C-alpha cells in the first residue's frame, strides 16, 4: 500500500482569517471602544482605588478618569493588534486585552460617579462568590475525566447544603455538618454512578432527573421536618472564620485567600491536589485513560467500571462538601432550592476551564468576579441600568463558554457507557 503524500501545492492554503486573527480583530474593536468612547464619556475626575477592604481608610491611589480609560483602552487595543498581526500567544493576549478593557470600563464608570473601589473587598466577594462554583466544577472534572457526564452537580450541591443544615444542627458540630454534606453529595453520586454504569442510561438524562429528585426531596423534608422546629433541625450556625495573621494583610488578594471559612482553604487545596493527582499520579493516568479510551484501558488491566464508580463517588463528596457553603457560609440555615441554579454555572465553568482543575478554578473566579463587579457598579449607582448589570455574570459566562474557548474537546469517552466487548 502506498501512503498518500500531500504535496505542498495540493494542500489547502491556510486561511489568513484564523480563529486567532478573528478574535484579534474583535479585541481591536473593543480596544477602540475603550480608548475612544470611554475616554470621551469619562469625566476628568479621579477614580479612587483602595487596597484594603474598606473605602473609609487605608492605602489608596487615584486614577484620573480620562487618562485611565485611555491608557487601558490602548493596552487592550495593542494586545488585540498583536494577536491580529501574529496570530500567536492567543491565551495571554486575550487575557491582557480583556482585562485592560474591563479596567478601562471600570475606571469610566467609577470616575463618572466619583466613586471609590475597595479592591480588597472586591477580591473577597469574588472569592466567596466563586466557592460553590469551584467545588461544583471540580466535581464535574473528576466525573467527566473518567467518562461520566455529571449534570447532577446542582443536585449534589443542594443535597450537601441540606445535609449540612440538618445533621449539623442535630449533632451540634460543624465537623459533623461538613461530613454529612459530603455524604449527601455522594448519595446523589451513588445513584448517578449506579444508573450510568450498571444500567447504561443516558447520563445527561440521569443528571437532570437527579436534580429534580434532589430538589423535590430536600424541599419535602424542609417543609415537613425542618420547618416544624427550626431550632432543632435547621440551625447549624455559621462556619468559623479563620484568618491567617500576616498573610491576610497582603494588599488586594490577602483578605480573599488568607481569611475565610474552612471551605476557602479546602477549595484552594483541592485545586492543587486534583491537578497533581490527575496529571502526575498513577490514578490520574488511569482516570484519563478510562475517560479517553476505556477499551484500551481495559485491555491493559485497568478496572474501568470500578474506577468510574470511585471517581463519581469522590466527585459527589467534593460537590456535597461545597454545598455546605449555601447553608453555613453565606447563611446559617437551609431554605428550599437554596442553590438556585449555581450548579449549572459550575458545569459551564468546568467546560470553560477545559476539563482541567486549574482552568475550572479560573473560570469559577471569573464568574465570581463578574458577580462582585455587578454588585459594586449597582451600589455605586452606575448609569448602566441595574437589570443589565445583574445580567453581567451570565452574559460573561455565555461569551466565555460560547465564544472565547473555541473548540474545546471533552474527554473522548465522556458520557459513553462502557460495555466489555
Amino acid at each position, binding site marked *: 500500500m502506498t501512503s498518500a503524500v500531500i504535496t505542498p501545492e495540493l494542500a489547502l492554503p491556510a486561511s489568513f482569517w484564523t480563529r486567532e486573527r478573528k478574535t484579534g480583530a474583535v479585541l481591536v474593536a473593543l480596544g477602540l471602544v475603550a480608548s475612544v468612547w470611554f475616554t470621551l464619556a469619562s469625566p476628568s475626575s479621579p477614580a479612587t482605588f483602595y487596597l484594603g*477592604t*474598606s473605602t*473609609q481608610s487605608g492605602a489608596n491611589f487615584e486614577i484620573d478618569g480620562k487618562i485611565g480609560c485611555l491608557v487601558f483602552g490602548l493596552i487592550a487595543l495593542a494586545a488585540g493588534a498583536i494577536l491580529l498581526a501574529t496570530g500567536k500567544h492567543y491565551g495571554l493576549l486575550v487575557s491582557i486585552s480583556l482585562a485592560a478593557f474591563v479596567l478601562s470600563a471600570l475606571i469610566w464608570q467609577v470616575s463618572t460617579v466619583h466613586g*471609590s473601589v*475597595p479592591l480588597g*473587598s*472586591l477580591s*473577597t*466577594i469574588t472569592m*466567596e*462568590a466563586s466557592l*460553590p462554583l469551584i467545588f461544583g466544577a471540580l466535581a464535574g472534572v473528576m466525573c467527566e475525566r473518567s467518562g461520566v457526564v455529571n449534570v447532577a452537580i446542582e443536585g449534589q450541591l443542594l443535597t450537601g447544603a441540606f445535609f449540612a443544615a440538618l445533621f449539623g444542627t442535630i449533632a451540634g458540630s460543624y465537623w459533623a455538618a461538613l461530613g454529612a454534606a459530603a455524604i449527601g453529595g455522594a448519595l446523589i453520586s451513588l*445513584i448517578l454512578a449506579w*444508573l450510568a454504569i*450498571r*444500567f*447504561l*442510561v443516558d447520563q445527561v*438524562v*440521569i443528571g437532570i*432527573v437527579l436534580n*429534580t*429528585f*434532589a*430538589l*423535590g*426531596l430536600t*424541599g*419535602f423534608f*424542609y*417543609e*415537613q421536618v425542618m*420547618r416544624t422546629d*427550626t431550632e432543632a433541625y435547621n*440551625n447549624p450556625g*455559621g462556619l468559623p*472564620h479563620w484568618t491567617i495573621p500576616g498573610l491576610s494583610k497582603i494588599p488586594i488578594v490577602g483578605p480573599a485567600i488568607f481569611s475565610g471559612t474552612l471551605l476557602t482553604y479546602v477549595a484552594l487545596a483541592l485545586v492543587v491536589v486534583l491537578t497533581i493527582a490527575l496529571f502526575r499520579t498513577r490514578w490520574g493516568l488511569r482516570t484519563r485513560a478510562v475517560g479517553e479510551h476505556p477499551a484500551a484501558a481495559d485491555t491493559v488491566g485497568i478496572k474501568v467500571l470500578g474506577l468510574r464508580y470511585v471517581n463519581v463517588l469522590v466527585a459527589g463528596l467534593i460537590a456535597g462538601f461545597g454545598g455546605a*457553603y*449555601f447553608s453555613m*457560609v*453565606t*447563611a*446559617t*440555615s437551609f*431554605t*428550599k*432550592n*437554596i442553590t*438556585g441554579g449555581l450548579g449549572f454555572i459550575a458545569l459551564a465553568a468546568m467546560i470553560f476551564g477545559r476539563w482541567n482543575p486549574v482552568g475550572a478554578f479560573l473560570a469559577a473566579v471569573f464568574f465570581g468576579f463578574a*458577580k*462582585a463587579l455587578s*454588585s*459594586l457598579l*449597582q*451600589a*455605586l*449607582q452606575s448609569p448602566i441600568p*441595574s*437589570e443589565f448589570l*445583574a445580567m453581567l455574570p451570565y452574559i460573561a459566562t455565555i461569551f466565555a463558554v460560547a465564544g472565547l474557548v473555541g473548540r474545546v474537546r471533552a474527554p473522548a469517552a465522556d458520557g459513553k457507557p462502557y460495555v466489555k466487548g
Partner: protein
Amino acid sequence: MRTTRGMKLIALAASAGLAFGAAACSKPPAETPGTGQSAGTYKACMVTDTGGIDDRSFNASSWAGMEAAKAANSNIATSYTASTAMSDYDPNLANSVTKGCNYIQSVGGLMGDATKKVAGANPNTQFSIVDADNLGLKNVFPIQFETQQAAFLAGYLAAGFSKTGKVGTYGGLPIGPVTIFMDGFADGVAHFNKVKGKNVQVLGWDKATQKGLFTNDFVKQEAGKQQSDTLVAQGADVILPVAGGAGLGSAAAAKAGNYSIIWVDADGYETTPYKDVMLSTVIKNSKDGVKEALSKAAGQKGTLLTGGFLGTLANNGVSLAPYHDFDSKVDPALKSEIEALKADIISGKIKVTSAAQPK
C-alpha cells in the same frame, strides 16, 4: 434489556422527586394541626408568592393574619398553597376556586395579573390581594400600605444611628412594593440631613433616578450577603435589605461584619434567629390587614366586600418596630425625635411620598 430497566428507575426517581415536591407544597404546615377542612364551613385559602410561607416576611405575616382570623372565628378553615415559580400563581389560584374556597388570599403585587385573570373569571368568589389595588374588579379586596411612612422613620433612625455617616439598602426586584421602602428610607435620611445639617449618604438607592442595588431574587441568601458586603465595603454600617428571605444572608453576616440590620415586613427580632443585629424593623402589618379582610368576609358570607384596607402609621398598619436589644444603644434624644416625626406624619405636617405608594 438493562437500559430499559434503567430508564424505568429514572422515571421512578423523576416522578418521586416531583411527587415529594408537590406534596411539600400542598400540605398545610405541621405546626397548625386541627386545620381540618371539617372544622370550619368558611374556607379561606391563601396562595403564597415564590418567597414561600416562611419567608419571615409578608407571606409569613399574611398567613399569621389568616390564622388570627381563624382563631377569632371558629367557622373559618384556613389552608395555603405555596408557589415555587411565577408560573404557579395562575394554576394555584384556579385550583383554590375548584377546591371550593370562599375566600382566596393572594400575596404580593407580582400576583396581580394572575389574580385579575382568575378573579375575573369567578366574579362571585371573594378574592383579596396584598400589595395591589382592586385590579378593577368588584370581588377583589385590596390590602395596601403607606409603607413609605414607616420607612421614613427607619431612614431617620439609621442616619442618626450610623457611626460612619453612610447607610445602605438593597431590594429584591425593582417593583413598587420593594422600592416604596427604599424611597421612604432615602427620604428619612434626607430629612435627618436637613434637620441636623449633616451629610449622611444612602448607598444602594437613589430616589430621584429610581436606581439602585438589587438581588433580583427573594430567596437566595448568598445574593443578599453579596450585596450587603459590597455596601459595607463602601462604608455603610446600617443595612435595610428589602429582599424577603434573601435578606437573611445579610442578617446572618451582620455580627461578623460589624453592621446592623433594619428588617422589613415582620419584626425581625421575633421572626429571624438574628436578634442581636436587629436595630429595628419597618413593619408592614399584613397580618392585621388580612385578618380584618378575612374576618369581615366570613362575617358577611355571600356578599362581597367593598372598599379596601390601607395601612398607615395612624392605624398601625405600618410602624417602626421596638428597638429590642438596641434599646440602650439608641440615643434617647433620637428616639424622641422619631416619636415626634411619627406624630407629624400622622397629623399630616410632614408628607412622605413615593412613586410606588397606593393611589
